[in-house]
């Protein structure tokens, strides 16, 4: 657990530092309470403190890093697919983009049965249409291209 400790420790310290810096221009209103910056500064201080402890723990740790990082790329690719999905929703709408994304994800995870590749995306879209849009009256984004 050496690398994760050090990484999360450093991120925690940086995050605490950055937010502390941002609190510097918070105004102190003339009221009885502690002001806008007081508690966020405490939180930042704590983040820095815990970050330092984690960092020390990480440096002292000499155990082997047992976690293989080989598989991360599969998770990263799926994140990219979902990111693309989210980015196109405003343009091509929820239904088309969802069907495309589910299809891509299925294909990506080595599903080759034509029945599955067609029925799962369509079934999912139908489910959202019936439950969310019709039953629960959620307004599902249609996309600017179809307006």
């Amino acid at each position, binding site marked *: 657990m050496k690398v994760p400790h050090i990484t999360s420790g450093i991120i925690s310290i940086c995050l605490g530092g950055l937010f502390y810096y941002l609190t510097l221009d918070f*105004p102190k209103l003339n009221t*009885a309470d502690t002001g*806008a910056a007081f508690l966020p500064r405490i939180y930042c201080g704590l983040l820095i403190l815990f970050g330092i402890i984690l960092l020390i723990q990480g440096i002292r740790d000499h155990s082997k890093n047992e976690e293989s990082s080989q598989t991360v790329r599969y998770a990263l690719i799926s994140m990219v697919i979902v990111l693309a999905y989210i980015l196109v929703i405003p343009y091509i709408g929820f239904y088309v983009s969802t069907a495309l994304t589910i299809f891509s*994800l*299925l294909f990506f995870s080595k599903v080759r049965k034509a029945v599955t590749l067609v029925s799962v995306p369509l079934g999912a879209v139908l489910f959202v249409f019936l439950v969310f849009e019709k039953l629960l009256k*959620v307004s599902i984004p249609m996309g600017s291209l179809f307006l």
Partner: protein
Amino acid sequence: MSLLMEGIVNILHWDVLLFLTFGTLLGIIIGSLPGLTSTMGVALMLPLTFGMDAVTGILLLIGVYFGSVYGGSLTAILINTPGTPASAATVIDGYPLTQKGKAQKALTVSTLSCAIGGLVSVIVLILVAPQLANFALKFSAPESFALALFGLSIVSSIAGDSLVKGLMAGTLGLLIASIGLDPIGGFPRFTFGMSELSSGINFIPIMIGLFAASEAFKSMEDIFTENKVKVTIDKVKLKWLEFKGLIGTILRSAGIGTFTGMVPGAGADIAAFVAYNEAKRFAKNKEEFGKGDLRGVAAPEAAGNSVTGGAMIPLLTLGIPGDAVTAVLLGALMVQGLQPGPMLFESNGPIVYTLFVGMLLANVLLLVFGLLGIRLFTKVLLIPQTILTPLILMLCVVGAYSLGNNYFDIVVMFIAGVVGYFFKRFKIPASPVILGLILGPMLESNFRRALVMSQGDLSIFYTRPITVVLLVIAVITLFTPLFSKKLFKKS
């Protein structure tokens, strides 16, 4: 008693029963879908009740309310996706149980705990509501601050293996919660000029991302590695002896939930976390908590559902809505010409007792639907991971969006999902973040409001009995693990 009998007679009309059943079922569906909250479910059904008579309309809403609190735990246990905030604490032990193949048992415990918790709280409501109501009024800013601090102190018991990482995650949650308009001065903090951020980041998209999306990313990875986790479903039923061991936990949690429900501004999410902590505190054998302990499911479930009856106490006796759901119910009651408050019981006694009987019945319906549905619900686990994972990711997106019809929430959910994935890799627990997000606003606004009220005098925090008691419990809770467990624990 005669009023209660009259209530039973009033409820035995087919249309009342039909709508109560419909409401409960709809509530379970709404609750199990991430992003759709109890408040939203009740608000969506509200206009429908305008045309109904008082009892039918209100009981429809109550069915939706009770059902949705229960429904959230189904997805929490089965696919690590809390359907409502109330189930955020249930995932800690619920999902590990599913991974061990004990999904049926976990769902049985969850259903039983929910129903018992709900029944206990309604019975408390019927018997001693007026006496308890005034206690709720004693909660002012310093008491609420102390309660929030107590809630936060349980971070040490949900931190998992590394206390430091748990505390760090909790603090991160608090910091994220401070984004947006500062609750006392109205100054926009950390908003970078974005109006979406000025009212703060809603914690539900973060919860969906941290728990559900991150798990989905992780399973995309598992699909490619050979060490595929094959989820099994043991057909082993819950044994009477096991259930007997849980009764204490369930009743204690029901008490915690009913009490929390009464307190204005504190809801099922807080109650569930507090009950989880107390279950662990009272347990002799703590090792299994976080790895799949039935008590870790029973406690938050019983507490979460017993909040429903508790929240009705100040609503019906004082006309004070303690949270958003009861605020909608208050509106529904008033449209029906029922004015909640001390006079309600005198002027509309029969209706009130019919509602009480309806609430009891709603909990019984939960029990029936829950137990009947378990085998159906667990079928979800039979769906191959390759198919389930894309569907969960889609639900994350549509759930985050439907919360406020806001595209921004989808982006928040996605970021939380990516962060949550790395949390998993780095073995940082996600639940403390949620705890910090839920309690951060309550902590800060009440702390500073108390100081405004006392005009800066700190003695307001140590001269009020309830505040002092809660603060002492908070300190004990936070520091117990420090002494029992080494802070600098090596991995």
